[in-house]
């Protein structure tokens, strides 16, 4: 399969800021490099500049003066999208409604003036890869959302682009289909080894697909790292709270550890900390006060299927979230003794 992609491309943005004509500053000066064959996910809340970044890379927008875009070592800043040889997949799919599935998939080949018989072979190959051979002669309005997504991917990949850019390709689909396609896209990208930039605001999608994730907020990069780094070593309070759920306790460092209103946590790191963070899965419930680091009262309980999610009042601003057994959870109003795994403690 990797023969489908001639050679992967590395992409570099240098000082790319974007101010729209109406004065909107969509992107602060951004430096970024994406190595050949890597899947990079742009993650962040709505309006943070993900699409703008992607469009800069695609050549659909120009960076403000001084910004440069490099494909390998070539400066492509002034090249339009026509000349950049990248594959695009849009959230709305943007399939040509006046063409059949096969014509859509073959569109780029037609523009490249590939001989007709070769086109047919390539189209069939792409349809087979996306498992939509049976739909070849369908019109676009006769397809489901998931099928359209496959056609859009097949169309983008048919011309063997240097890189693949996807803007929230799964957002319009229902949750179950999204999960299935996410797995499929992941396998596809791995087997193709194509340089990919994937925009999403869904953190689960980002974790599952990305070699690296860029978390953005308000036109700025908050953190760049592997999914594990982003999750376990968030670089800022924004990242900590945006990815997964995070508990926060205020207190002071004492010789015993980190002391807060609910107890004392095992904290042996040097330096001062006014707040510690930890994830719900690092909290364990203990039966006796003897082993407890924290004490609290269960305020609310939510059954999630495979576990129960407890909100526990520990006398801080916000209650902390604790995961409990699915079948016999603690009752609301009950006193709870907890420990936190020392490795799970963070301070920012």
């Amino acid at each position, binding site marked *: 399969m990797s023969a489908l992609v001639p050679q992967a491309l590395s992409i570099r943005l240098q000082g790319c800021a974007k101010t729209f004509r109406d004065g909107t500053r969509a992107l602060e000066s951004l430096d970024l490099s994406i190595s050949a064959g890597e899947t990079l996910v742009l993650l962040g809340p709505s309006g943070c500049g993900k699409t703008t970044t992607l469009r800069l890379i695609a050549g659909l927008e120009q960076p403000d003066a001084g910004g440069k875009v490099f494909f390998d070592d070539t400066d492509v800043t002034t090249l339009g999208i026509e000349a950049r040889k990248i594959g695009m997949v849009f959230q709305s799919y943007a399939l*040509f409604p006046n063409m*059949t599935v096969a014509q859509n998939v073959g569109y780029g080949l037609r523009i490249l003036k590939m001989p007709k018989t070769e086109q047919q072979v390539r189209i069939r190959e792409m349809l087979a890869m996306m498992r939509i051979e049976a739909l070849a002669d369908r019109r676009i309005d006769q397809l489901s959302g998931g099928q359209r997504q496959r056609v859009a991917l097949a169309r*983008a990949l048919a011309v063997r682009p240097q890189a693949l850019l996807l803007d929230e390709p799964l957002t319009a689909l229902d949750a179950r289909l999204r999960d299935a396609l996410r797995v499929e896209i992941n396998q596809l990208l791995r087997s193709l080894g194509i340089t990919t930039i994937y925009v999403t605001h869904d953190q689960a999608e980002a974790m599952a697909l990305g070699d690296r994730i860029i978390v953005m907020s308000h036109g700025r990069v908050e953190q760049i790292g592997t999914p594990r780094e982003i999750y376990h070593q968030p670089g800022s309070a924004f990242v900590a709270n945006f990815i997964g759920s995070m508990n926060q306790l205020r207190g002071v460092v004492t010789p015993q550890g980190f002391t807060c209103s609910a107890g004392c946590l095992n904290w042996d790191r040097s330096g001062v900390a006014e707040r510690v963070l930890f994830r719900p899965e690092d909290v364990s419930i203990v039966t006796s006060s003897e082993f407890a680091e924290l004490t609290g009262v269960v305020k609310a309980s939510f059954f999630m299927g495979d576990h129960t999610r407890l909100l526990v009042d520990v006398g801080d601003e916000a209650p902390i979230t604790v995961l409990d057994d699915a079948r016999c959870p603690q009752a609301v109003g009950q006193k709870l003794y907890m420990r936190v795994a020392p490795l799970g403690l963070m301070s920012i």
Partner: protein
Amino acid sequence: MIYMFLPAAAFFSAFFILPMCRLFLVGGSGAIGWRAYSVIVTDSNYFNALLATFGVALATTVTTLLIGGLVGVFLQRYRFPGRSFLMAIITLPMAFPGVVIGFMVIMLAGRQGLIGQISMALGGDRLVFAYSFLGLFLGYVYFSLPRTILTIVAAAEKLDPKLEEAARSFGANTWHVVWDVIMPGLKPALISAGAICFATAIGAFGTAFTLATRINVLPMVIYTEFTLSANIAMAAALSFVLGALTWIVLALARSAAGNTVAAAA
């Protein structure tokens, strides 16, 4: 289902079947009986008028769609100073009666017209074409352009810019984008604007009345038969043929385009 069928059927009979039947019958009730219909083909006076009418209407439609399409897409895409003013005055010609439009064509291309004066000043002959096909054609285009432009602007608003970006990502140039994205997207609007333009040009009377002194178009012939010769049967026969032919042309255009429109939907 029946509740939707009934009003449609009532509309269709009131506006189409009943008047056309009546016209058809009256057409055969004159001195020459049903021969009134064959005369339209055999009499060169009638037949040439018929050809002229459809010829001018066709030329008007094609030209209007071409100019209207370009201007409409341009107006929708580009913001420039004076754009909203232009959009506001663009409907002006629609408010003019046909006679006024005819008069304007005379002022432009008549014996004392601007074009004639300019061509004289440049040392050539006095150019006068207000009373020819060209004059009629100019008047019809002038009248039909605003409606066409507005229809195209509205349709162009609805084009998905992502489609164009997708095409361009494959290296498509401007012509590819126009043929593969913009034209298919505008097709329904082009068809309906074209149909209205064609029908208007077939039936426009005021402009023809002012300008058609040298050429014969069917509305003028019908008027002459009706008022001057009091040949009501012949007027009715001509009207019926005019209506039926227009309907056939529009139906053909619609179904020819419809096949591709269905594929585009």
